[in-house]
């Protein structure tokens, strides 16, 4: 095994283990905190894939914003009682079987993929000379301008929706 492969093995094992921890914790706060650790690992994996910008927003948006939102909600709902009850549904074995089936089928599909498209011209050297952020910015504001604008609209809807949903009804 080469060094990169060893690094990957570490990340693969820890990400899988952390994922299992996240979905099995009884206390949601613990689950969210393990998720935080998981996100940091994924961010590092992005670095490994020459995607510095993604690593940054993974930490900033996921860990910094979304998980904090989760923690807020957990605290607001104040679910002390819930912790004493069972954490899984009665049908959890079926879910387990289904998830196992997913894993097996997906791996089977993905292993079968042998034909890949022609590599693009964003080689690693180009990325490194021009800078990851610069390239993403250029592409995002030219080729993908419309999806980008639509995303901003989605965020606007989310803002308004969240305000409307949580607002107290005025009689």
């Amino acid at each position, binding site marked *: 095994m080469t060094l990169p492969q060893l690094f990957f093995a570490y990340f693969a094992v820890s990400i899988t283990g952390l994922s299992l921890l*996240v979905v099995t914790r009884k206390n949601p706060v613990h689950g969210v905190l393990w998720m935080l650790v998981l996100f940091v690992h994924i961010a590092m994996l992005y670095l490994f894939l020459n995607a510095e910008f993604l690593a940054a927003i993974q930490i900033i948006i996921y860990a910094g914003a979304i998980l904090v939102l989760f923690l807020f909600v957990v605290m607001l709902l104040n679910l002390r009682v819930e912790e004493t009850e069972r954490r899984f549904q009665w049908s959890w074995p079926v879910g387990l079987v289904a998830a196992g089936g*997913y894993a097996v089928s997906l791996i089977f599909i993905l292993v079968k993929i042998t034909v890949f498209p022609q590599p693009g011209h964003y080689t690693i050297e180009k990325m490194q000379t021009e800078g990851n952020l610069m390239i993403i910015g250029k592409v995002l504001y030219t080729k993908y301008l419309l999806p980008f604008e639509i995303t901003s609209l989605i965020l606007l809807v989310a803002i308004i929706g*969240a305000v409307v949903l949580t607002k107290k009804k005025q009689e």
Partner: protein
Amino acid sequence: MVPLSWYIMLSAVVFSIGVLGFLMRRNLIMVFLSIELMLNSINISLAAFSHYLQSITGQIMVFLVITVAAAEAAIGLAILMAFYKNNPTIKADEINLLKG
């Protein structure tokens, strides 16, 4: 060099764990967290493809997925709050409003 298929397998495994959590957990917050997990597994594979195919589109996709995930989390949790105001429970198997 790490083969692309390893990343893809990691992604598939994490996705399956997300599905597992989504199907098993009773606590709605954990159900949401599982959805985030599934989204992240997809992101891993997208970033890996981007790297191996030397295309920037994968990273753009990750960026868009993260944005949508943020919106989804905000709206989902807002719905959860609004729901909790009316029925003080967030247990997935006790919510049967879909029953006509």
